[in-house]
């Protein structure tokens, strides 16, 4: 049976279990004098039965599907290996593929070795058997769970506690996913970074002020001028993010305030989603727009003012990025501002405050944690954004605070280093991982500070 069919059957079974559970609970309750005599609501008994029915079976299925393939492969290949055809990992892989493709009927059986053909047949047999076993196991587990779940239904059984315990576990697992993701990210950059720091001293990387990977440190280029000082990249990131926030925060926040406090309902329902479109326009499009429309415009403007503006100024990339992240601030802030209870506004208005005073002094402070959350999210997006900067900001690693100059960012370098034409263990490519790691650490510090600050200024309303 297909895994998806099996899954649907289990879900179906658990839905059936739900109604069974509910029916049983109701039946139990009737002679006792109504559901109030049960410890929990019938729906909890039902949910308990459904969860018992579905959860173990689905977990089993997940694990099975992850491990099925490797186990079958090793079983199948053990014969082939015994046949003495395999000398290296490469041979193994190849033979395995051959077996797979023959088994799938993509390759013709003609001219293949008999061991391989046998293995292919084996594979098919194993697969069929494994699926059968899985089907049987999962279904019986599911039915067993169902029966157990139903049998546990007693008037004094604490079904609610049991269901909520499971739910809490699931909720916590979801929250922990963030930790695992972080761990995964760290693991996927740390080793390469260590590798990188073997060839480039960590101090040079962190404190060096010159970034020029063009003459990379290759074996045949000892002592040439390739330099990996990350400072200009971080200042560049900072500069562009600052420009972006300079555009996005006032526009986003003021839009949110206007929408939540001044605009009519109609305007609000129209404008808010319209602004949200800005978040979904592909970054490539923004990149073109920044590079081809905004940058020349700013340059010409600057020239007519007698300023020396680079044609790939940080200003152009930053301001376009700012436009992109407007909705992160406007929508989020709008939601939290709307959620501030009306009595807070009433209190202020009744003292003779104008609307804007009420907003600035009462509503916004009360909504501050949410607003800061939105701003931080937008800032994060600005720091992590890649495509716009790749197209519009260029790659000149200048150490400058002048937004009219061209700068580059960490993400640009990561992308070009990772996707460019490199030998893969060159310092250049590895530098991408080191940059990723360092960016991670830097933003982590920023976030810790931000958390502290938010905690300090939090105003909890009633």
């Amino acid at each position, binding site marked *: 049976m297909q895994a998806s069919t099996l899954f649907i059957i289990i879900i179906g079974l658990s839905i059936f279990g739900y109604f069974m559970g509910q029916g049983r609970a109701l039946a139990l309750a009737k002679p006792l004098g109504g559901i109030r005599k049960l410890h929990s609501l019938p729906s909890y008994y039902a949910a308990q039965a459904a969860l018992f029915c579905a959860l173990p079976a689905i977990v089993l299925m997940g694990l099975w599907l992850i491990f099925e393939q490797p186990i079958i492969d090793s079983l199948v290949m053990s014969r082939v290996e015994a046949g003495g055809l395999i000398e290296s990992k490469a041979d193994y892989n190849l033979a395995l593929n051959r077996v797979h493709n023959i088994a799938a009927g993509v390759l013709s059986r003609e001219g293949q070795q008999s061991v391989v053909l046998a293995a292919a047949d084996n594979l098919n047999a194993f697969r069929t058997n494994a699926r059968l076993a899985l089907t049987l196991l999962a279904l019986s587990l599911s039915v067993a769970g169902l029966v157990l779940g139903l049998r546990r239904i007693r008037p004094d059984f604490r079904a609610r506690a049991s269901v909520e315990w499971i739910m809490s576990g699931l909720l916590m697992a979801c929250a922990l996913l963030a930790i695992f993701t972080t761990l995964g990210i760290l693991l996927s950059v740390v080793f390469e970074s260590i590798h990188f720091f073997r060839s480039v001293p960590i101090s040079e990387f962190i404190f060096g002020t010159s970034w020029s990977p063009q003459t990379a440190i290759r074996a045949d280029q000892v002592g040439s001028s390739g330099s990996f000082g990350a400072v200009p990249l971080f200042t560049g990131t900072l500069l562009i993010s600052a420009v972006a926030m300079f555009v996005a925060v006032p526009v986003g926040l003021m839009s949110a305030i206007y929408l939540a406090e001044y605009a009519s309902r109609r305007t609000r329902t129209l404008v808010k989603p319209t602004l949200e479109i800005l978040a979904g326009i592909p970054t490539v499009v923004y990149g073109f727009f920044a590079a081809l429309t905004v940058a020349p415009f700013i340059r010409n403007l600057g020239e007519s003012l007698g300023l020396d503006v680079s044609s790939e100024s940080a200003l152009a990339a930053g301001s376009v990025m700012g436009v992109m992240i407007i909705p992160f601030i406007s929508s989020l802030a709008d939601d939290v501002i709307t959620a501030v209870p*009306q*009595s*807070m*506004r*009433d*209190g*202020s*208005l*009744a*003292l*003779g*405050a*104008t609307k804007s*005073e009420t907003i600035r*002094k*009462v509503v916004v*402070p*009360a909504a501050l944690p949410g607003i800061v959350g939105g701003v931080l999210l937008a800032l994060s997006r600005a720091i992590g954004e890649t495509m716009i900067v790749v197209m519009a900001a260029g790659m000149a690693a200048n150490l400058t605070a002048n937004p009219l100059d061209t700068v580059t960012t960490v993400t640009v370098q990561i992308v070009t280093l990772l996707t460019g034409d490199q030998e893969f263990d060159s310092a250049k490519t590895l530098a991408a991982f080191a940059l990723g790691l360092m960016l991670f650490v830097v933003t982590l510090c920023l976030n810790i500070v931000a958390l502290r600050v938010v905690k300090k200024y939090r*105003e*909890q*309303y*009633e």
Partner: protein
Amino acid sequence: MPDMKVNEKHVTVGKQFHDDPRMTMRNVNVFYGEKQAIHDVSIDIGKNEVMAMIGPSGCGKSTFLRSLNRMNDTVEGCRVEGEICMDGESLYNTKLDVVELRARVGMVFQKPNPFPKSIYENVAYGAKIHGLADSRIDLDEIVENSLNKAGLWKEVKDRLHQPGTGLSGGQQQRLCIARAIAVTPEVILMDEPCSALDPIATARIEELIKELSENFTIAIVTHSMQQAARVSDRTAYFHLGQLIEVNPTEQVFTMPEHELTEGYITGRFG
């Protein structure tokens, strides 16, 4: 509550009007969407007068009070008809400056709603936005004075910079009173200001009302008839959104003109 019918086209009995009115209301109707909460109320509130408003729960006292400083504007779907004037000027005139109006007509809400700020900031808020204090010292003085008048100073003087939301119910109520009087409004509307207060604190507030009434106009909604009797000059009785009777407080409590008023008063003591 006695199930007495209100005559379809009712007439308010008693002394609705005042010779020297600060606020004059004529044929006021208030609607929440379709539902009419106030029916055709006409009444004056005199200068330096304390007007008590009584009536069964849900009869429209808060609604009426809120329409006196246009706080009803903030309720979606709420509509006010008729004429409400202060010193002869119509409040619902589009030209009227509602900010100034609210600064002049202060309000204490039925449910205490302190800002999620420190106690000090709560009281200083009005003074700050109106620029009533020239210096920090002035401001400190205003805060202390107001808290003192509301009888809260002693309890909170050591925790002025802790959040106002961490106060007890009665303390929050007094905080809101302090906040309202800190901007020295000319008219003060109080919606059950003593509902959560103990007798001593109540006495303090009643004293405050007396004190304020020497210069200012006060409208107070209360459920305590003793309180009404103690502080007010005239008493208005509302019933199902209609103004049934307005008379000097003495008279209302001793020999009410309208049978509904009498029912309400005696229902209490019966």
